[in-house]
């Protein structure tokens, strides 16, 4: 058997972002021997990039706010594709999770009377986001990191786990390698919590870092777990577009929350043309009313600049395609004309810094050039809403890697609260499960087989540059599985993915096993391609436009599809895509949502929509 370092834990948490850390803290608190395993150094996970805030109906700024309104906003923002129970738990528990961070030392901005200040964000009826300037994610991850360190939880840093170990159906551990030494490592675990985030690195223009290679999704799929809604990818409307080296870098929605407006190249506030019927009742339809809303929220409806992200991203995409974009293919975001330089620097210090340093733009005087950037995937591992258990025993998932909570589109600020609420629930359930579960058996043959797979690139002497394959994959997903999708393009993407898979198997690796990024990428490609395939196949199945999934050939939102999840399973090495009904919202919650359903055409841009029945 290969030389593999071995460890045994009750609960192994993979990923050390908000969800992973929160899960580990909870599992540890409940007496489980817990390990956190993460690909980067501790505290560098993507949560750190979250800027605007944590959505929680604390009611500090608007006493009218409560969990029911938050629940409604979340469900409507998700185009009612959400798992109602998750949305309910999330809305109910988010305030406690935020207050808990204060118990661990977090310092949010304050209201005059000393409570947590909340800011406006897209799709939230009330100012609801607890925040720290525009670096809320940093505050959150550092608070959780320090809490986890103080509790003495074992952390395995720069350790990539690539495969789940199984005993029959049950997940009994995980296996991977130390990035620093290249040595292999295997964990036996009674329960594994996946908190690995998304798969943004499959796209060219993304706010995500190298880590976002879909590891958790791919591992769960391999272990037999169900995925749902993989076609639901979120393009954040405001990413940087210029210069090329920063393309995709996130510009927080807080810019719009704090007064920023979108304009096309002629200076028109184009968002007024893109208000969908579903949100018309609550959205200002004149510039006058929208401007007045910043000062008087009671008597005016909110500006369309703060529609949910999917709507804004599509609108920007349409403007650019119609030739009304900037020279670098974006639109303008302007906060300088509404707010003073002092206000901008105080509320949005890192945006100010980011534009100044990287783009030579002073946002207190100039407009920002922005465009959509792949930011998040609403789809992922199907979980039980209360326990975050995946569909195979011993496996749990929380955060971006899990699905259901956000439906077809996630509201800004709901991610950080999602991490905390469901991270805690996953940690709790995993710890409880580990008390009942018998000791895991780790199958040496399985370990050897995986060891061989991971070592293979060194032995095969391939002829393909993994960086090149990755780059081409990103272009493919960007062009063919982007904001606006079409059958023929999706099919073309599938064909190309097949070719990438064949080439990835021949990826060449040079150098030693010590901290070798070329090797790491060669291994990551398999996950990237596998998850990209799940996204593409799911996108092909869902023949409607809803939230983060827009079909040029099916531009209408179809109420029939609104009752279905697209489910992905891997059986005998092949992806199997089906649809299953969404759990029905109970009557008392349904009443909160209103009678209307999302309908109508999505703004797909300059292309002529293909008439239904054309294919």
């Amino acid at each position, binding site marked *: 058997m290969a030389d593999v370092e071995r460890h045994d834990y009750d609960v192994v948490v993979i990923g050390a972002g908000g969800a992973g850390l929160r899960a580990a803290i909870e599992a540890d608190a409940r007496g489980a021997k817990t390990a956190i395993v993460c690909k980067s150094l501790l505290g560098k996970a993507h949560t750190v990039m979250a800027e605007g805030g944590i959505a929680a109906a604390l009611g500090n700024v608007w006493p009218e706010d409560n969990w029911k309104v938050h629940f409604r906003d979340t469900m409507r923002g998700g185009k009612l594709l959400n798992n109602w129970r998750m949305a309910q738990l999330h809305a109910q528990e988010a305030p406690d999770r935020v207050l808990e961070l204060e118990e661990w030392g977090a310092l949010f901005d304050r209201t005059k009377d000393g*409570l947590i200040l909340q800011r406006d964000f897209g799709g939230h009826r009330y100012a609801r986001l607890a925040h720290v300037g525009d670096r809320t994610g940093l505050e959150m991850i550092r608070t959780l990191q320090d809490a986890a360190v103080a509790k003495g939880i074992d952390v395995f840093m720069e350790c990539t786990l690539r495969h789940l170990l199984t005993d029959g159906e049950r997940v009994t551990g995980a296996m991977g390698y130390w990035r620093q030494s290249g040595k292999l490592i295997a964990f036996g675990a009674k329960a594994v919590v996946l908190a690995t985030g998304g798969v943004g690195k499959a796209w060219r223009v993304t706010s995500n870092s190298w880590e976002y290679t879909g590891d958790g999704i791919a591992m769960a799929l391999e272990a037999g777990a169900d995925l749902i809604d993989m076609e639901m990818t979120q393009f954040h409307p405001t990413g940087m577009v210029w210069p090329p080296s920063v393309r995709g870098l996130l510009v927080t929605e807080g810019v719009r929350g704090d007064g920023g407006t979108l304009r096309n190249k002629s200076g028109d506030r184009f968002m007024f043309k893109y208000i969908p019927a579903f949100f018309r009742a609550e959205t200002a339809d004149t510039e006058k009313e929208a401007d007045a809303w910043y000062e008087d929220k009671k008597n005016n409806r909110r500006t369309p600049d703060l529609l949910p992200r999917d709507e804004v991203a599509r609108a920007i995409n349409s403007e650019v395609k119609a030739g009304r974009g900037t020279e670098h293919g974006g639109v303008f975001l302007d906060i300088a004309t509404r707010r003073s330089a002092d206000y901008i620097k105080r509320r949005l210090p890192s945006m100010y810094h980011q534009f100044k340093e990287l783009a030579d733009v002073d946002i207190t005087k100039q407009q920002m050039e922005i465009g959509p950037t792949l930011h998040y995937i609403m789809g992922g591992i199907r979980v039980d809403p209360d326990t975050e258990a995946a569909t195979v025993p011993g496996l749990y998932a929380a955060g971006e890697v899990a699905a259901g909570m956000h439906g077809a589109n996630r509201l800004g600020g709901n991610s950080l609260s999602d991490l905390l609420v469901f991270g805690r629930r996953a940690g709790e359930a995993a710890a409880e499960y580990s008390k009942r579960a018998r000791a895991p058996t780790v199958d040496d043959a399985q370990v050897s087989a995986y060891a061989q797979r991971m070592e293979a690139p060194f032995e095969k002497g391939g002829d393909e540059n993994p960086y090149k394959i990755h780059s081409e994959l990103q272009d493919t997903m960007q062009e063919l599985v982007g904001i606006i999708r079409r059958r023929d393009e999706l099919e073309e993407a599938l064909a190309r993915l097949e070719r990438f898979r064949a080439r990835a198997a021949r990826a060449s690796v040079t150098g030693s096993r010590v901290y070798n990024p070329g090797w790491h990428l060669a291994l990551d490609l398999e996950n990237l391609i596998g998850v990209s395939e799940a996204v593409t196949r799911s996108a092909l199945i869902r023949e409607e436009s809803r939230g983060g999934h827009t079909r040029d050939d099916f531009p209408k939102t179809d109420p029939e599809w609104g009752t279905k999840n697209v489910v992905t399973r891997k059986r005998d090495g092949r992806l199997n895509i089906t649809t299953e009904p969404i759990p029905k919202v109970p009557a008392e919650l349904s009443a909160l949502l209103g009678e209307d359903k999302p309908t109508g055409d999505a703004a797909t841009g300059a292309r002529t929509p293909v008439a239904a029945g054309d294919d």
Partner: protein
Amino acid sequence: MPDTQVWVWRGDASGGDFMPYRVEADEGMVVLDVVHRIQAEKAPDLAVRWNCKAGKCGSCSAEVNGHPKLMCMTRMNEFAPDEHITISPVKTFPVIKDLVTDVSFNYEKAKTIPPFKPKPRDPDGKRRMYQEDVERVQEFHKCIECFLCQDVCHVIRDHEENKESFSGPRFFVRLAALEMHPLDANERIDLIRAKHGLGFCNITKCCTEVCPEDIHITDNAIIPLKERVVSAHYDPIAWALRRMRGKKDEFAPPEPKPPSA
């Protein structure tokens, strides 16, 4: 676009040297982009840490022409067209490979810091803090743990033997954040002097100069901590006042209180 040439330090714990690489330059490129291009085109095993590429995660610390910098925030147009550009790993920590160093020193030190311990809640069960109090500490919470201050601090950069008894600027920022937290009830002043070695700092301010988050590490974290240590250890009048008032006065750090329920 013209080519750009950089010299990247390649090697491991046993040694290494600068190697020249020439790649195509793009508008707006940062040093990290150049390193990525070298990886993709010339040296796939070139080791480098990075994550956010926006100066928010603090992963891509290195020394560019001898200056501790985040590679993602160092624009290539800062350099003259024919400038000899070197990129090397941070010096304070042992090299693992190329630009990657073993920063576990920091994670070990972090474990020795007594965590936040909240004071009791207000009678209505809420916790109140005020913006003026929170703002002072929020400056310290901006720290992205890039460890550039640790790299530039000569106390450990040039004197390996001090690593045992000195925690470095990053941890004085953290300790200051905890000590000045309006709701913290833990006591650390003694520890700051004895265990974390505040006295080793000769306030030469290089940590402040390199901080990519513009935290005034020396003026706002280290010196106020030094003043607090003075009150607790060196100031005879503060000592006398404490005795007179039965060991309780404003000049002394608050007595540890039992944790809230």
